């Protein structure tokens, strides 16, 4: 993939995508597995509280997602994911998004192209059908970021 095809991704995401492209298809799976193992456990406020998280139905296995937007100048985005250990691919997708987007300003997260999940060279390694899960996660993250940023902005105006 030419470098400019990653030009519209946030810096961290572009770097991670580059890591994936630098290795063979087989090693890409290994990289995804590592990201799945590094996905941090939920903080106390979410642990055991799936009812306050959003369920991502596009994933083959249940994944729960929580998005927070901090009331600071850049409207910093924080992401939390929960998926069982028996779903390493789903966890790996979550790991990619967390590694790429956690801590970014809301504006940058909203600017991430919807086809970003396809920029990691994974479609052939895991099969295109399995990519739907990551596309679903990204669209739900952006939707929640939009809603939460609006809520904070509205509060500021009130």
């Amino acid at each position, binding site marked *: 993939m030419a470098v400019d095809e990653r030009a519209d991704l946030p810096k961290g995401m572009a770097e991670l995508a580059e890591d994936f492209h630098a290795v063979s298809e087989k090693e890409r799976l290994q990289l*995804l597995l590592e990201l799945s193992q590094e996905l941090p456990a939920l903080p106390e406020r979410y642990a055991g509280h799936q009812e306050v998280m959003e369920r991502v139905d596009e994933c083959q296995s249940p994944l729960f997602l929580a998005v927070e937007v901090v009331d600071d100048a850049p409207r910093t985005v924080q992401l939390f994911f929960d998926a069982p250990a028996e779903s390493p691919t789903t966890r790996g997708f979550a790991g990619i998004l967390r590694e790429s987007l956690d801590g970014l300003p809301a504006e940058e997260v909203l600017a991430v192209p919807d086809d970003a999940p396809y920029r990691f060279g994974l479609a052939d390694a*895991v099969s295109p059908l399995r990519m739907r899960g990551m596309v679903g996660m990204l669209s739900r993250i952006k939707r929640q970021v939009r809603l939460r940023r609006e809520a904070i902005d509205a509060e500021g105006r009130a």
Partner: protein
Amino acid sequence: MTEHDTKIVAYAHPERLVTTDWLAAHLDDPDVVVLESDEDVLLYDTGHIPGALKLDWHLDLNDPLSRDYVGGERFAEVMGERGIGRDTTVVIYGDKSNWWAAYALWVMSLFGHEDVRLLDGGRAKWVAEGREMTTDVPEVTPTAYPVVERDDSRLRAFKDQVREHIGRPMVDVRSPGEFSGELLHMPDYPQEGAMRGGHIPGARSVPWARAANEDGTFRPREELEAIYLEEQGLAPSDDVVAYCRIGERSSHTWFVLTHLLGFEKVRNYDGSWTEWGNSVGVPVER
């Protein structure tokens, strides 16, 4: 004989199912090859039954271009690189109550591989029993598996055949929400993969999971007969078509009807709802 063995010998084709005890005793058997086939493409890599090899339903069994299974030559490569010969006993296990394991078994049956079995209870049961798992990938001496042409005529149904079949026994094994068509209504979210929701006219709703116990093992024969024969009125001599969304869950039901209950003519419609629900001009019932 354990209770589990007693359950298995009661099935129509008991040779199609093995227990975890049987598998544990045959891990070093040179005539047995164990394959793990999961929904999650990485699960095998997190740890698997010692000696087992990965067989991915999508990457290994599906053609990369057209929506179809691999042909005879590619299938021979897939088998050969796993050290499988035409006479090898293949035992398949996997996640999700063996959906993908059953799917792989069904595809191997299209190629007429004679001795292919499922591990009752799949991966979850092996893990729950605290049995050994490893991340070591075994080294395989490749074999020359013969190039056999796939026979789609007996076990597989295509869309036009399913259309002709309307009015005869058909089993929709998806969840009740998918059967009724409600699951397609999710505004703002990516589509579930079909333009229309509902089911093929006349299909009976028998979710696949009814054939499984909580631990993923198959229900005993008499309980399966109570569901498919008594409640649904099917008979082992019936010409039956089973379908789901992409053909994996219906492989599970195909296995139940064919091998556990001894039905003689069950075909899996692998195009399933992702084909039917996107096709122009086919009848849909809600």
